[in-house]
């Protein structure tokens, strides 16, 4: 995994946010989080991958849409700053002792990982509540966009 030069280390050693060129390596991330804090009893690693089939909702309910790959673009300095803000807020709100965030930039094929979140805490409730909140915030505010490539070769920016 090539780590982007824009990666920022937080003011606290508990936080690390990274933009990665291309898909995330799940095995590399799993290795990097294996050295856990001995005072923490709960650790949660979430990763999101490109899905090949989307079941549509609303007026198009019942039909599906196929995806060949996604390409991510970021406003890099602001994306790093927003990831850092989210990680710091999560640490305070849920007493997390460690938060690590990764997001892929560039093409990510079906089945490959585009986003990963790792959190540690003394007890499981904090990580199991904090990680979903972190993902919701990433999807709400981090200036990263996906462009979808369909099997017919057409592309579409996703803005929703």
């Amino acid at each position, binding site marked *: 995994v090539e780590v982007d030069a824009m990666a920022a280390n937080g003011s606290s050693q508990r936080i690390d946010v990274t933009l990665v060129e291309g898909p995330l390596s799940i095995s590399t991330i799993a290795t990097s989080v294996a050295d856990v804090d001995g005072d923490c009893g709960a650790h949660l690693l979430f990763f999101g991958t490109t899905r090949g089939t989307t079941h549509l909702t609303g007026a198009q309910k019942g039909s599906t849409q196929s995806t060949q790959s996604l390409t991510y*673009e*970021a*406003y890099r300095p*602001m994306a790093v700053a927003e990831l850092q803000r989210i990680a710091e807020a999560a640490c305070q709100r849920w007493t997390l002792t460690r938060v690590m965030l990764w997001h892929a930039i560039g093409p990510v094929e079906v089945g490959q990982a585009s986003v990963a979140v790792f959190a540690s805490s003394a007890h499981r409730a904090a990580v199991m509540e904090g990680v979903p909140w972190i993902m919701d915030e*990433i999807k709400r*505010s981090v200036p990263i966009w996906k462009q979808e490539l369909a099997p017919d070769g057409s592309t579409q*920016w*996703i*803005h929703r």
Partner: protein
Amino acid sequence: MIAVELFAQPRSIVGHEQLMIDVSLPQTAAEILRAIGRAVPELLPLLPSCRLAVNERYVAETTVVNLSDTIALIPPVSGG
């Protein structure tokens, strides 16, 4: 003239990473958004859901933007 950083669909529509618009600063973020719409009418359908970032932070529409600021048009994000 001021430069506005563009990303994703707005960048595709304009065809450049920056849009130069004719606005005298200081000016509010809301007025800059209106000026973007006047400069590129093709962006008008997307603008109501866009936010403006100044110096890499989201700002309210009433925020005053100055000459030394970095301005970016942020369409609805879709990371994850």
